[in-house]
């Protein structure tokens, strides 16, 4: 079974761009408007899940193979920890907002403001998106083994 009908494939092919763009917008503007890394990450993951449901698992695995997703997951967690440790090195305490206090104060209500908060949002978004994508990929990988077991 390779995905759904042609109607679903074409529609999801158009919609996937909008969903991905919306997820990136939610992550980038998380410090100004409602949203943030958690919500945006889940939206990015749901974009990939839509593709998986419409086109089948193999199509998604060609675009974002499982080892790459696993590495991106680790990169997201590592980036968040590195931001925290940079606060320790440059600002004097763990998780301090060193960019806002020392180097780049920015102006309130602009995109470039709030120091490390947008960077942390990016790291959290990457981590949440890839880990939720990994869970659903692993859950869907398990299906053929189940049906094979039942027939025996």
């Amino acid at each position, binding site marked *: 079974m390779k995905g759904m009908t042609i109607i679903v494939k074409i529609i999801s092919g158009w919609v996937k761009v909008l969903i991905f763009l919306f997820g990136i917008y939610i992550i980038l503007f998380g410090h100004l408007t*409602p949203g*943030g890394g958690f919500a945006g990450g889940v939206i990015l993951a749901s974009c990939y899940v839509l593709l998986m449901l419409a086109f089948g698992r193999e199509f998604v695995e060609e675009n974002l193979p499982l080892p790459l997703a696993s590495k991106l997951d680790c990169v997201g967690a590592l980036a968040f920890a590195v931001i925290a440790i940079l606060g320790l090195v440059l600002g004097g305490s763990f998780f301090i907002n060193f960019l806002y206090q020392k180097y780049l104060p920015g102006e309130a*209500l602009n995109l470039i403001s709030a120091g490390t908060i947008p960077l942390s949002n990016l790291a959290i978004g990457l981590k949440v998106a890839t880990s939720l994508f990994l869970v659903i990929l692993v859950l869907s990988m398990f299906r053929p083994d*189940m049906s094979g077991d039942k027939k025996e």
Partner: protein
Amino acid sequence: MPYALCFLLFVIGLYCAVVKKNMVKIVIGIMVMEYAVNLFLIMLGYRFGGKAPIVVEEDIVGAGGQLSSLFINSSVDPLPQALVLTAIVISLGSLALMISICIRTYERYGTFDITEIRRLKG
């Protein structure tokens, strides 16, 4: 009174998790309890006629990001919202963990019934 209704929701989830013997039903009971706790925490911070804790342009008076007293006196509590935001995403991860345990058990024993599983174990 809304607190009591919220607690009733929690008790329904507790009943489902304790009494039912289907594994998926137990997972559903735990999810209902999570919803009840999240709702209760958000309700604790609500105030009548409150505003969302998002600063817009007219709330800033004076230099250096001084906020107007109108915003300070009408904003809802941002702390429970921050806690619940993490709790919701964690609940999705724990849901995936519980569901994978259910799938594994079904593959091993061919049933979701926990009393049957206990009997098969001997």
